[in-house]
């Protein structure tokens, strides 16, 4: 869904927040973070409505963010990356973990 600004979409623009799936071991801290409020568009533009900060992510980052918002496990996210890109599961897991560490560093998780 696109807002009138034409760039961002997210819960505050009408999309429902993702519900946690029963039994899923989500990324530690993710349930409490600002991550679930982020407005993300399909081009990888990310807007944090809490602080007003915006940034862009590449297609790998975008998939990881989407996975986290859908409360997928790291394994599920890595598996999805192997479906989308030419990458081994181990490497995909490392990339996803590095990205999650960056999200923690900027306190989005």
């Amino acid at each position: 869904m696109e807002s009138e600004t034409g760039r961002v979409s997210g819960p505050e623009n009408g999309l429902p927040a993702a519900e946690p799936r029963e039994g899923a071991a989500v990324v530690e801290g993710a349930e409490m973070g600002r991550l679930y409020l982020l407005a993300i568009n399909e081009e990888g533009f990310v807007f944090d409505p809490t602080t007003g900060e915006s940034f862009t992510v590449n297609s790998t980052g975008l998939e990881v963010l989407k996975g986290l918002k859908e409360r997928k496990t790291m394994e599920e996210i890595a598996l999805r990356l192997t479906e989308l890109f030419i990458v081994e599961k181990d490497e995909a897991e490392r990339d996803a973990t590095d990205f999650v560490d960056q999200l923690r560093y900027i306190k989005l998780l």
Partner: protein
Amino acid sequence: MKDLIIGVTGINAVDNPGPGVGVARSLREDSELNVKVVGLAYDAMEPGIYLDWLMDKSYIMPYPSGGRDAYMERLAYIKSTYGLDFVIPSLDVELPFFTKYGEELENMGIKTVVPTMEQFRLRGKDRLEDVAKTIGIRIPATRVVSSHEDLQSALDEIGYPVMIKGAFYKAYCAYTSMQAASYYNSIVAEWGYPIIVQQMVKGEELNVVGLGDGTGENLGMVGIKKMGVTSLGKIWTGVTIRNEEMLEAAAKFISEYKWKGAFELECMVDSGEVYLIEINPRLPAWSFFATGVGVNLPSNMLRSAFDMPIPKARDYESGKLYVRYTYEVVTDMKPFQEIVTTGEYCHEDAV
């Protein structure tokens, strides 16, 4: 209902803009209001005077610092010659006059919605810690000092870099004790005591503009982040945000202090933590941003003063962008000549 005639100050839309032009524009945006807008300027070069789509008439005012009588006489003159039902003062220096003589103005038939004197004093940076505690928001480590000895112990405690601030005006960042002492002396010489020594908070600037009706009711608020500022630190690009911590603090500011009038809370966010930096007891220069996202504070202010219904929907969407730009007006010499020679200019007469 007859047209209401609204006086708006701060129409100096220059590089350090006053809020008045945005206020006038907000009043024009409310199609249910029948208003005439009178620009109250302090200089013939204030651009607002020349914006005929916003102002019906403009007057040159004496400086409020020049004393009660001249200012009051000028308002009485405007009231008797053109009409004046309401004034929205938007400069800090005007607020003591409108606060102090609000009742007298009301008796003259000129209404205002401004903070009480006690509320007005809350803007002092020496009161910031108390206010922050009351409304549940952090402030940077702060010490209020009135001697070099106290300054030195505050510096030892807080460390560097450190902000050295006057209670109301001026703020400098110091990296050494010598620098801090020099800024201390310069602020004391210009503005007097006390001096505020404050931990330097790095991060992004967040602001919230709000309006209280004086009974604790919130008549609207909008939170923003400044994305781009000028060399004078004035917003040029911004975005609406929903920082719940900041919005809750602003709502509490209205309810706890029964704040009457507009206000702006200036905050910094560092690693997700929000710190209150400053309180401005008036509309900020960017207040049209709030109008643009559906929260028309000047209109709500006017409506509250005249017991007109105030729109219930006062929410806004985050992620709305504000972009300032420059604009030019080309006109005849006539308005300039008249404002210089007679102190007033009426756009209606020019039609």
